[in-house]
């Protein structure tokens, strides 16, 4: 069940996006499941259609869902080994790098350095 908290500091589109991604990740929404049309979900949740459309768009960019014209929006089968949550984290990271005006090579280098650091910490810990 999707729950939108109007008083939450997290914007509604983000609440919606995270909850759908979590449902995909836990297979509460298995591949092929159809999501409600934008307008219907917007009416059910008392949101503007644009808000729902934005959440769907970002899920689509994260390759978690796909929209096929009149067939509606459905959950994509997993082509990547990345979980839905990991794909969303990558997308969040990419968006933040763009906001900070970090170039792509610098962003990739920063990720590699961060991953190397995490691996090193793990090796020391074990």
């Amino acid at each position: 069940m999707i729950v939108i908290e109007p008083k939450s500091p997290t914007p509604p589109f983000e609440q919606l996006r995270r909850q759908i991604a979590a449902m995909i990740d836990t297979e509460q929404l298995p591949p092929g499941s159809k999501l409600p049309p934008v307008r219907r979900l917007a009416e059910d949740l008392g949101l503007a259609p644009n808000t729902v459309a934005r959440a769907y768009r970002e899920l689509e960019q994260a390759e978690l869902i796909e929209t096929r014209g009149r067939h509606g929006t459905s959950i994509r089968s997993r082509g990547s080994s990345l979980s839905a949550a990991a794909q969303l984290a990558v997308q969040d990271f990419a968006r933040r790098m763009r906001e900070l005006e970090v170039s792509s090579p610098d962003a990739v280098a920063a990720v590699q350095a961060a991953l190397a650091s995490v691996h090193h910490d793990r090796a020391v810990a074990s």
Partner: protein
Amino acid sequence: MTIAIVVLVACVLAASIPLLSARSPRARATALDSYARRVGLELVPEIEPRVEARLRRRERSVVLGAAIAGVTGLVIAALAPAPGGALAGLSYEPLLIIVLAWCGYVIGAAAASLSETFDRDQDSPRIARAIQPQVHHYLSDAGRWTGRIALALALVVYSAALIVVATNFGGIFDGMLGTYLLGPATVSMLLALVLLVLAEVMTTRIVRHPQPASTSTELAWDDALKSLALRDVRSVPLLLGFVATLLPLGVLGALATGHGPGSLGNVLVGLAGGGFIALSLAYGVLALVSWSGKPDQRYWRQLWAPRSEAATGGAAS
């Protein structure tokens, strides 16, 4: 005409039974409790007055629908030319009024369902399903298909009657009589086809109608009320299919009556009578099967039970 007025009053009274039988607060509480048990939901204090208000508006709407459609049937019957000669006394008026009153009842139920949602505070949480509910979540296969099958059967019987009358099969019919008798059968067949299309459209609209809710209880109650409206809507093609099958059978029986034992006419009368009995039995069995499948709780089994099981499984593991 007197019989038609009596039938109209009886139809409106029958539609008013839930409204009239629960006028006191205590009677209403009992009726509501009984309905809650039937749909398998709890009546928590936060939801009870709102469910009661929705059911009450539905009851008023169905009475209004039955009355308007029944009176329309009465007017049509009054304007239609009365049969004379050998057919004097043969009247379709009561049947017309019953069918139209039932259609009005269902239109009232559908209109109430399409105009109602639970109100929600601006600041309260908003919940919704992540899947789009479909017709099969609310209606069983029998509920979805029997109306269509009944109509297909009616079309077959009507076509057979049309061929028999048009070709004067076996030379046993009075052509004029056949043409007159087939009129109401043709009207009922066309009406049944139009109403099947309307029922399909209404079914889709009711299923897609928004369900604003703040709690799971509200959403479950909305599902239960939606399911009730859908079952009402699907009963229209079933009833019309029955009538549209019955009328051509009646026409064949009436046309062939009066011939001696062993004659073709006599065989046709037997076939028409047997067809009527078989059809009535089939509808009786269908009603029993539908009833035993607890159609009131199908929405729960389809939309809520898997979720409850998943939650229980999750808690256990």
